[in-house]
């Protein structure tokens, strides 16, 4: 069983080394790849100095394109499964290992790490306290994604995932650049893949604040709902292996 762990990174020179060290310690058997999404800082150099392969996109393309690069590398490299986590240190590698275990045991094709430990709990009552606009967005996306997929999702925008080759094959061909996280879940369920959510522990952001202002949030939510709606009418694709 060959495993690839890839980390999309955009201007994360300060946190990337710690994330790499964490992954190496917790998932020692896995190959590592950092996808540098056109960083203007020393992210790529830092990664190479740590002896890790880095796929440097020539310009910033957005998270979706960066993740797709990772899936493409995993597919071409002949890996049996792959996982990705955020580069800002929010995602502990030992939790990623738990997601990978689910895929390796073939209990699911795609496993999402959810920061909400109890799927029925009110958002924000446990250790994780998001802002109001984030809470609204989370609720709206939860509602519509659950409606669209008829499957319960709590953490729709989680960037901690593990996947097998079926998912690599699908995502390396079709991955929305704008709504990578949400639309990819919808797509995977529509294509008949087994998608599973696993509660995980996440850490607070090491630095920086959320990039969303209320107006931007509202627009982001509106866009997300439109994307989901349109996604419901997309023709089903015929996968290569299914």
């Amino acid at each position, binding site marked *: 069983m060959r495993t690839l762990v890839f980390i999309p990174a955009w201007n994360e020179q300060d946190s990337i080394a710690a994330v790499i060290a964490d992954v190496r310690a917790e998932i020692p058997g896995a190959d590592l790849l950092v996808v540098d999404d056109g960083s203007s800082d020393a992210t790529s150099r830092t990664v190479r100095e740590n002896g890790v392969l880095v*796929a440097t996109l020539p*310009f910033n*393309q957005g998270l979706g*394109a960066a993740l797709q690069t990772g899936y493409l590398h995993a597919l*071409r490299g002949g890996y049996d499964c792959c996982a990705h986590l955020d580069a800002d240190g929010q995602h502990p590698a030992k939790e990623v290992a738990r997601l990978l275990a689910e895929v390796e045991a073939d209990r699911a094709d795609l496993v999402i790490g959810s920061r909400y430990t109890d799927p029925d709990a009110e958002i924000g009552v446990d250790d994780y306290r998001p802002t109001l606009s984030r809470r609204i967005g989370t609720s709206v996306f939860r509602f519509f994604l659950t409606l669209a997929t008829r499957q319960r999702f709590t953490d729709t925008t989680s960037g901690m995932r593990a996947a097998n080759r079926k998912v690599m*094959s699908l995502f*390396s061909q079709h991955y929305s*650049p704008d709504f990578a996280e949400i639309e990819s879940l919808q797509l995977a369920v529509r294509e008949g893949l087994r998608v599973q959510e696993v509660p995980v522990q996440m850490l607070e952001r090491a630095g920086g604040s959320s990039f969303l202002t209320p107006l931007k949030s509202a627009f982001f939510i509106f866009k997300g709902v439109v994307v989901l709606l349109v996604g419901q009418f997309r023709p089903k694709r015929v996968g*290569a292996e299914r």
Partner: protein
Amino acid sequence: MSLLLAAADDANTVHLTAQTRILAAILALAFMLAILELIRRDKLQERYSVIWFVAGLGMLAGAAFPGLLELVADAMGVRDTNVALFSIVLFFLLGLALNFSVIMSRQAAQITRLAQERALEGVRDQERENGNGAAPGPAESKEEQAGRR
């Protein structure tokens, strides 16, 4: 009252003076020449020029045969030929703008894939440099080949 009726009647027919027609024809010809020049200087690809040529021809036809516009307006059931003209132009431009969005989306996807391929090529270079025994990954997986067939 009769004055009003006469005025209303007046609006129903197009009164293009010879001056306007000549001006319109010159503009249409200049427009088409500009397109030719852009193609000649490699600033516009032929495949995107066809639609503009058709537009130029339409302008020329409108200038040469003003009755044509009235005919079209009648067919549309529009009393005011000016409204017909503006509606046609508006929808034409709307369709064109949509067409550009489609082309832009396709090109954005192509640029993204190009950037990804470039990045992965860089990874293969690093693998070769490291020379850790592992052969660099293939440029294409069997799933991708199967997907294209």
